[in-house]
């Protein structure tokens, strides 16, 4: 595939279906995942977004209730200091996508509040004392929210649908500040997880999600690409 020409027909039509919104949740999530790794697909999606956007003129504008801006503003006022990056050793840590994702992750922390909206039937009894938003490098993206609760658990869930390629699993990792190797927090199902607190879960710990063989990394260290990453911040 050439980077400068049109994508092949199949890729372009899948992008069109995705932007039009006709794909079911699983297929849409698959497109998002692919777009992060396939620049042609990401470009095709952007082109369809531009082509189809005028259809939104058919919808009558509707002023939102006044409290929504307050919610957005509160979400953005969450701590957003710049994550300090450390040079890591090993091939995984030299992947440009990983570091690109990490530099923008700090701003994404604001999304921790957004997560609350998705558990309306579950009263929030405890507020997290630390949180991270894990985002993907390039392409349309899903954000993962990680919340460290005062009861010692770590809640991880996706803001949006995610797809795991067949025969593979996501695995969750914690990389403590100053540490050179991450510690596995276990295989992460696409619907999220609630796990017991591990010793490395501290402010500024990097939380990573890598793509691994089914059942998780056989080596105890990430073997596949880091799909999402972000740093925990105190709230």
């Amino acid at each position, binding site marked *: 595939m050439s980077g400068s020409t049109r994508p092949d027909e199949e890729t372009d*039509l899948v992008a069109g279906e995705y932007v039009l919104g006709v*794909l079911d949740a699983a297929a*849409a999530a698959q497109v998002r995942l692919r777009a992060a790794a396939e620049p042609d697909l990401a470009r095709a999606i952007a082109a369809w977004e531009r082509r*189809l956007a005028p259809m*939104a003129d058919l919808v009558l504008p509707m002023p939102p209730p006044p409290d929504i801006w307050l919610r957005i503003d509160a979400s953005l006022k969450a701590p957003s200091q710049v994550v300090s990056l450390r040079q890591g050793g090993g091939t995984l840590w030299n992947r440009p996508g990983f570091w690109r994702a990490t530099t923008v992750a700090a701003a994404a922390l604001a999304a921790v509040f957004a997560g609350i909206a998705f558990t309306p039937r579950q009263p929030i009894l405890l507020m997290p004392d630390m949180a991270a938003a894990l985002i993907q490098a390039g392409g349309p993206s899903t954000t993962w929210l990680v919340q460290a609760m005062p009861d010692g658990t770590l809640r991880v869930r996706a803001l949006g649908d995610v797809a795991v390629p067949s025969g593979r699993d996501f695995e969750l990792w914690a990389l403590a500040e100053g540490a050179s190797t991450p510690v596995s927090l276990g295989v992460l199902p696409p619907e999220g997880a609630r796990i017991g607190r591990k010793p490395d879960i501290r402010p500024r710990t990097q939380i990573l999600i890598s793509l691994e063989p089914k059942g998780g990394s056989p080596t105890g260290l990430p073997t596949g690409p880091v799909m999402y990453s972000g740093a925990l911040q105190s709230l």
Partner: protein
Amino acid sequence: MNSDIASASPELAAELLGRCAEGDRTALRQLYGLYSAKLHGIAFRVTRQSSLAADALHDAFVQIFQQASRFDPERGSAEGWMIALVRYRALDILRRRAREEPGFEPPETEDESPDVLTRMVGNAEARALRSCLETLEPERRRLVLHAFVDGLSHTDLATREGMPLGTIKSWIRRSLAALRSCLEPSLV
């Protein structure tokens, strides 16, 4: 705060996104003033519930701020990018809700008559898309409009139209290809 959508030039929207990418929350506030009614209308049309529309709008503006650095003015328009973000959030929220609550049925959508296209008068791109939509057979045009405007999936469209899923999928693909070649004849 200015809420006149017509006054939001593409250049202004792109510039405000650029300031968001640098962490300027006042730029996001301006974008909110310019686009929140439009984006909220879109979210409400897809989710058909005010609480879900509010969630989609909230999430979309948080993402607009977080991901502003990913917007590439070479590839698309700022408004198109924001519209896409709110639609993806609204569709995710709607489909997740439908999955979690098997009995969940969003209210019926209103039927659109073809002359609704007269609302697409915003700019040259809107007029071009409108005239290309008008070249599609009416039945196929209706599918495309329902998909984009009402957030109907292949399966929703098949159920609603009483047509085989395969037919719906192939009509949508042919319509997309036709729209693309109508809009960008040089690419064919």
